[in-house]
């Protein structure tokens, strides 16, 4: 496939030629793409979120992250990339006018790229850009990065500004970086790691720790949670994961420790209670009144409440299936009969999950203030290792078949199960990078650090996992 063909499939809009001189004034020039739910203000640039609802939408302002990147003389913006509609999905196939031939995984053409930052991962893995920014709510950077055979980093929640990033679920949404080069991820993250007064959840300056130099630690305690051993996990993944652990053990200074996070098993129900609730709420603004698409009122001649019918026809036409499914799920959770038993319970369980994570790490969570938490700091771990996905990327043909198969479609839970390994870190806001378990493999492993330990995670990934040939 030619480069131009790749570009056509992966990008919604191309602003600059991908072919550029590699160096300007001695500096290396880096190209990048942005997931199309990140606002860029320009006359012809749209921010569609791959939804019919925003098909012609042009943002009148820039996201903070684009503002930061566009000020760097050695960075060049190429264009906006494909995604699952409103960042909901794990296959990269949700959106209007779905055509299986449009969606591709450059290294594994018969496989789905993974979602929701499908275009971000594909543009990196296809060699079109040096790095890409995506968004990760429950795994949407890590999963496509792993299935496209590249690296995806989800920083601690609140590290990178979300101003101008279209909301899916604010309490979970995190901007992430995808690249084939760990140094580029480090460099870009360091650029974006700054407080933004426009974003209320942006981590305050005093809680940000920027290491003056690389971490010179030579002993690492790695925790493996017992709860990840589940039947649903494909043996291919499991075998590869064990192989990775064996290699890791051969690195001097690395020790492996079993740890327990009992609430890990509850992560999916917690996530699929809270996330759709926020989705239902956030997407209520797409009513066709001020921007985006508006449908003609189907019930115009009738005397009844025209406001309601106008919104209903607009929303039913312009939202896709998965988006509607999550809106319904969320509205059900938030309805007065269900709120106490579902929403509040899920919030409490989320707090418990965070407490359990805090109890296994050696360092304290910077958000917990100075209050002593009960941890066995001598025995606490530095990082946790977990596979990225339950299965290798499915074949596009199988996915298309299941999409047209009524029975399969009625059971979206199967798709949701895929998030089992990525969702816990989203709920706890932990910095996590997914890297291929071997060179260009589409099976990924996640390195998880304590909240705020982003640079430690990146350094470990570079110095131990990559430079010591654990994952190559």
């Amino acid at each position, binding site marked *: 496939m030619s480069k131009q063909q790749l570009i056509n499939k992966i990008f919604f809009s191309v602003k600059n030629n991908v072919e550029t001189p590699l160096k300007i004034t001695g500096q290396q020039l880096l190209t990048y793409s942005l997931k199309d739910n*990140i*606002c860029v203000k320009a006359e012809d640039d749209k*921010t569609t*979120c791959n939804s019919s609802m*925003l098909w012609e*939408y042009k*943002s*009148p*302002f820039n*996201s903070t992250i684009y503002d930061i990147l566009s000020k760097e003389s050695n960075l060049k913006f190429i264009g906006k990339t494909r995604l699952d509609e409103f960042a909901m999905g794990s296959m990269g196939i949700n959106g209007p006018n779905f055509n299986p031939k449009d969606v591709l995984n450059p290294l594994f053409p018969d496989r789905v790229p993974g979602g929701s930052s499908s275009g971000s991962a594909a543009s990196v893995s296809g060699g079109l850009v040096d790095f890409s920014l995506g968004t990760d709510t429950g795994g949407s950077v890590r999963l496509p990065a792993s299935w496209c055979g590249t690296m995806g980093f989800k920083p601690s929640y609140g590290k990178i500004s*979300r*101003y*101008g*990033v*279209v*909301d899916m*679920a*604010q*309490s979970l949404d995190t901007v992430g970086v995808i690249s084939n080069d760990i140094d580029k991820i480090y460099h870009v993250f360091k650029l974006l790691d700054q407080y933004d*007064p*426009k*974003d*209320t*959840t942006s981590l305050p300056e005093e809680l940000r720790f920027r290491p003056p130099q690389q971490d010179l630690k030579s002993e690492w305690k790695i925790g493996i949670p017992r709860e990840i051993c589940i039947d649903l996990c494909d043996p291919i993944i499991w075998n590869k994961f064990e192989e990775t652990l064996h290699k890791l053990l051969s690195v001097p200074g690395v020790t492996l420790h079993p740890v327990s996070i009992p609430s890990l098993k509850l992560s999916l129900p917690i996530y699929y209670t809270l996330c759709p*609730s*926020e989705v*239902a*709420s956030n*997407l*209520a*603004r*797409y*009513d066709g*009144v*001020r*921007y985006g698409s508006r449908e003609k009122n189907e019930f115009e001649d009738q005397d009844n409440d025209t*406001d*309601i019918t106008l*919104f209903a026809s607009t929303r039913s036409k312009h939202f896709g299936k998965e988006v509607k499914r999550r809106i319904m799920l969320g*509205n059900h959770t*938030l*309805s*007065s009969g269900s*709120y106490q038993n579902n*929403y509040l319970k899920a919030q409490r369980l989320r707090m418990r999950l965070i407490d359990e994570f805090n109890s296994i790490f050696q360092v304290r969570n910077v958000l917990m203030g100075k209050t002593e938490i009960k941890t066995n700091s001598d025995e606490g771990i530095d990082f946790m290792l977990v596979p990225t996905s339950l299965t290798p990327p499915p074949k596009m043909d199988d996915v298309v078949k299941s999409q047209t198969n009524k029975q399969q479609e009625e059971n979206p839970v199967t798709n949701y199960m895929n998030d089992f390994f990525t969702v816990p870190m989203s709920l706890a806001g932990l910095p996590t990078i997914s890297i291929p378990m071997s060179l260009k493999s589409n099976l990924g492993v996640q390195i998880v650090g304590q909240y705020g330990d982003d640079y430690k995670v990146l350094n470990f990934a570079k110095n131990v996992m990559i430079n010591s040939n654990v994952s190559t």
Partner: protein
Amino acid sequence: MVKFRNIRVSLKTGRFYSTRNEYKLICGLEIHTQLNTDNKLFSLSTNAPFKSLNTPNKHVSHFDASLPGTRPKLNYECVLDALKLALSLNCNVNLNSHFDRKHYFYGDQPQGYQLTQHYSPIATEGYMNLYTDIDTIDTPTKKIGIIQLQLEQDTGISHYDNQEKTTMIDLNRSNVPLIELVTKPDFTTIPQVIAFIKKYQNLVRNLDVSTGNLETGAIRVDVNVSVDTYPRVELKNLPNTSSISNAIKYEYKRQVNIIKQGKASELLNCQETRGWNGKETVKLRSKETTIDYRYMPDPELGCVTLDPSIVQNVRNSLPRSSDDEIRSLMEEPYNLSVKNAKLLCVHNEKNEQYTSIEVKDFYLTSFDLFQKSNAKLSFKEKKIVANWVINELLGNLNKLELSLREIKQSFPPEKFVEFIQLIHDGKISNTGGKTLLFYILNLIKEKSISVELNLPKLVNELKIEVQSTINDDELLSQCKDIIDEVNESDPKLIEAIKLGKRINLLNYLVGIAMKKTRGRVKPTEYQRLFKFLLKIE
């Protein structure tokens, strides 16, 4: 006897039904108040929804229009205003309140939800006291409980064009800060409701947190009306106090009629929302069409966490309550009437000539100066300042359409006290004082620049100085003339005076005499002479 008195009281106040025991009226209020902060609740847009009615969508930020990717940022100015109001209403302040999303679709509700404080409002459990003398209610006191105060966003405004069949939406009001206040169902009469609203309006003006106007929608009142233990009916769209009063009256009668006809189980079996069209209440929503608002804590705004010291600082910075001010003005040394004390403490909405604060400042400064230069004033003598400020000065300002601000330059309290001193010392009479005051104010109006006022010179020019050395014979003949004149037109009158029947009649003669001499002679002097001429003791 008691019964008779009750009926008389109720007839007088037009609430015949409210004192009857069989159908008890119960009301609670929900009041929305627009704060007059510079900026909106969660954005930096200008907060001026009423002033910008003619320039729709002028003060709209990306957030106010709910563009994708925008974020709310709490304006703490609004929190400060909420604290002032909460503490003035004796509420418990919640040191960790937070915002919730209340979901419903409407054209002028751009987010698809309103940010409000449903689960954890900023203040709870307060009260306001009403008093019979200050607030004109029919019981000595009435305590109205306040359930909660919450901060929330206002919506945009929809303008319906029936001909074009379109709706125009103005988002200038979108995200304007509101405080919603919910009272307990403690009201049992309409005057209590009206008194509460008026007192609340005065409070928000006193604290300078809102314009407090019902007409502009800065204050919007919903009333919950129920009879006995039947479910409540919420009344909406009540633009002013008279519609509030009329709507409650109408709704009470409607519910009582339903109960009397035995149809309560059918027509009054669930909560209902009704609107007011100026004549009657009409059904808007009932249980079948109730909206489930699907409240959800906002996932990114976090808690509004307050340090206890902030609350204490706000408490210390509060102005004195109007009730306290009124009471202190009614006591020594001022001894004002309730009416006059209220005039100085209750904001007058429409008067452009002077605000109550300006009048109060003018009065208090004048009073202090007057008291300093006159030791040991009697009860009556102390009232001279209030009489001249409230009755004479304000009356003349109204007549001449002058503002207190304008005249203060040439005629400050210092000068005003010099003027009062002339009267107090008997240098000019009351009548002369009135003449002089009007002359001064008119002079200021005509010159319209600051005028140098030399009071003794003016007294001289106007020939109003009381002449203690005036010739007795001249005065006597003058008095004789007056008696003759009166006798000619009404001989019975002089007879009556001679018989000493009514002392007022003597003063009638004195009045005529004073007019003729423009107040230059003390009235007591005339009284003495008339008594002498008519041979009365």
